[in-house]
């Protein structure tokens, strides 16, 4: 097809809407930038819907009227950042259509360019790796198409857009971290693929974009052939040329052109092999300032190195090591942030050497180390003396359950001092009872017990209750404490003990408390009970 008429243009917008609606969920899922709220797809669909409705409503009889309806509909209905940018792309496109009766390939190329420019200008701080990058790539490709067939231009630009989409994670770390490509960019490609479906002829013949693009491999470090070597940026005060004149002139000297601003100040960004020509042109236009010329080959290399370092750094500043015993408790520690567990506890104290080995294994500069038992504190202090080039912060928790609460309060964003304060606070807010079995007959504080009795320990291993029944001992022990209404009672059950829902309910009723039950898996102690 050599030119687009009014009917085709309308059909293109309708098809774009259909295509994107079909794929909106796929686009939603990818959404992590700027806010990972998963609504990019729906926002773009709603923006298109508003455009289609406006076109229906006004029933345009000329391309000019169609342009006005598309602009108005998309702008008025623009939802979310992606919707706003889409509306600006349409605005730019239709500006290029002007009062033409047909859109041929030359106008389409201009439209691509204009759409890209307007979109970039609309965003206060354009971010690469987003829809903007995609439309720019599409536009740049469109400019190079030599055929005068409209479909050729669209197909070529869609393919360039897909290529650019694949590279978005390299431009935007948040995408890389999430292992996705840019959502708005994918949405935009569906918009154009839809448009292409308005023709009956050719379809994009290359592989389609996979359902969800994820990055399976590390970014390959390839020395790409750069078309332009220098990234050139500068400001021009009181320019004697208009943005359009500058763009036209600069277009011949390089690519990735971005000229924004007004009569008083113009910002220029471009990639070129002739920065001297750019400077000359700028000097002839007005007074220049903030000149920046970067060698992109070096930049590219640095980017890779920086990215690599960032990746490691962003991983972690603090490493967390805990001493714990019991499968369930280890699990709880791990999924609340512990990086390494040193097995051990009341009955099995880890050796100094074991501690040193573990602390050295962790590749962070700072380590927070919860000992969780006073019998281990000395060994821990000794071990720390042998750790070089790492800052180890010892948290002298005396019980695993105390350790869990303390760990929950840890916040890597605040200072170590504040963290120690927070941790200390957490320790004070909790009371802990241990339920175990007497290993011999005896007495303490005039409480007598025989071998095999259940005993409840509180504070500094003080026996507060004795019973021959496991449920009864729990109730008796808790009665000894002054439990406030609305407290949280948590039971960590020992090795091979299953949840006792009857006991849970009874405690909840009797003490007017929330009761939670977790499997701790600790040996020797049937229950650890915390009250907070």
């Amino acid at each position, binding site marked *: 097809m050599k030119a687009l008429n009014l009917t085709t243009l309308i059909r293109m917008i309708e098809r774009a809407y259909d295509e994107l609606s079909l794929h909106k969920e796929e686009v939603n899922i990818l959404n992590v930038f700027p806010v990972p709220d998963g609504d990019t797809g729906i926002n773009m669909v709603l923006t298109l819907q508003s455009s289609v409705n406006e076109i229906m409503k006004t029933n345009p009889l000329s391309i000019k009227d169609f342009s006005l309806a598309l602009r108005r509909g998309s702008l008025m209905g623009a939802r979310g950042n992606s919707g*706003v940018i889409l509306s600006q792309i349409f605005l730019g496109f239709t500006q290029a259509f002007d009062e033409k009766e047909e859109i041929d390939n030359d106008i389409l190329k201009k439209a691509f360019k204009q759409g890209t420019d307007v979109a970039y200008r609309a965003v206060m701080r354009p971010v690469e790796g987003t829809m903007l990058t995609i439309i720019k790539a599409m536009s740049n490709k469109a400019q190079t198409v030599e055929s005068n067939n409209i479909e050729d231009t669209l197909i070529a630009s869609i393919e360039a857009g897909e290529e650019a989409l694949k590279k978005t994670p390299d431009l935007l770390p948040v995408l890389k971290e999430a292992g996705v490509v840019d959502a708005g960019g994918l949405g935009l490609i569906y918009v154009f693929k839809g448009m292409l479906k308005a023709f009956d002829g050719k379809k994009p013949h290359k592989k389609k974009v996979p359902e969800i693009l994820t990055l399976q491999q590390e970014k390959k470090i390839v020395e790409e052939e750069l078309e332009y070597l220098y990234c050139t940026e500068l400001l021009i005060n009181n320019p004697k040329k208009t943005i359009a004149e500058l763009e036209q002139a600069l277009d011949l000297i390089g690519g990735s052109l971005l000229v924004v601003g007004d009569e008083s100040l113009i910002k220029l960004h471009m990639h070129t092999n002739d920065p001297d020509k750019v400077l000359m042109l700028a000097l002839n236009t007005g007074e220049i300032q903030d000149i920046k010329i970067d060698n992109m080959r070096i930049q590219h290399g640095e980017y890779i190195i920086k990215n690599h370092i960032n990746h490691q750094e962003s991983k972690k500043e603090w490493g967390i090591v805990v001493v714990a015993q019991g499968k369930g408790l280890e699990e709880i520690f791990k999924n*609340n942030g512990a990086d390494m567990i040193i097995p051990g506890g009341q009955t099995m104290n880890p050796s100094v050497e074991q501690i040193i080995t573990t602390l050295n294994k962790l590749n962070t500069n700072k380590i927070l180390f919860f000992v969780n038992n006073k019998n281990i504190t000395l060994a821990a202090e000794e071990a720390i003396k042998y750790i070089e080039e790492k800052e180890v912060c010892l948290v002298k928790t005396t019980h695993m359950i105390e350790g869990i609460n303390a760990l929950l309060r840890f916040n890597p964003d605040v200072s170590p001092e504040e963290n120690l304060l927070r941790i200390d606070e957490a320790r004070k807010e909790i009371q802990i009872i241990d339920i175990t079995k007497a290993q011999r007959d005896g007495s303490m504080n005039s409480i007598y017990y025989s071998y095999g009795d259940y005993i409840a320990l509180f504070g500094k291993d003080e026996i507060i209750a004795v019973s021959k029944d496991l449920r009864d001992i729990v109730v008796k022990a808790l009665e000894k404490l002054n439990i406030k209404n609305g*407290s949280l009672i948590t039971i960590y059950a020992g090795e091979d003990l299953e949840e006792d829902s009857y006991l849970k309910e009874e405690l909840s009723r009797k003490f007017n408390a929330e009761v939670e039950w977790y499997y701790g898996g600790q040996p020797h102690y049937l229950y650890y009970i915390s009250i907070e």
Partner: protein
Amino acid sequence: MEIGLVTDGTCDLPPEIVEKMNIEVVDVHLTTEEGEPVHLQGKAYYEFLRNTKKRLFTSQPSVGQFVETYNKLGKIYSSLLSIHLTAARSGTIQSAEMAKEAIPDLDITIIDSKQTSLGLGLLVLEAKRLIDLGKSKAEIINNILSIVPKIKTSISLDTLEFALKGGRVEGLKLIVGTILNLKPILSFQEGIPKVKEVIRGRINSLERAFEVFKSDLDTALKECQEVTVGIAHADIPDIALDIKNKLLTLFPNIKIIETYAGPALGAHAGPGAVGLFLVPCART
């Protein structure tokens, strides 16, 4: 009257107040996955939220809505003050800015409250108070801007589900996947809702949120003569009332607005959440 006041639907101010005070509220949109608009309010909305298995989406007002509102008010007022929810978590301000650019003849000042819900609502009421006192526009803007960093929030969530789905809260990653039943307390920092603390147990979390808020309130009262307090709850009226009474016992003279959290905060915080907001008043 010459200064008109515009805000958005996330301000959670009760309709009767908004109407009485001539504050123009631009609606934010709430839609289902299918794009069906949701218009429910109060209890009915939370019933819907609890039962619907679908995600709800909130999105900023369109540029067109702002253009219409500004044009409408431009006929009545000589200048407009447009105060909105945090730009760090919504494009509302961007829509407003674009609308402003589209109507260059109108004198419009757009202010980022760096808040939402009653944090925004009470700030708008403060602006209204200053307008009614006949302060100059520059004075009002300066006052409002100086209040923004002093606004304090403490939001207790009952469930992580909605905050996770909504994706607008920072710091949740740390507690996702934990098997312990954790209740985060959030506050706004530089416009971003962040997890400030995680607490175990519902009652403990509510108490902690109250304690944090109370100490913020103590500090604020030392610094300013007056503050207003907002309690926005996600369908827990009894608890909200309880908090209100506790606050009034401790601070008999403060003004408190208590209301249902609107659909926007509700969709992100989830049923059972309660947000406490304090906004200092300008010295007048």
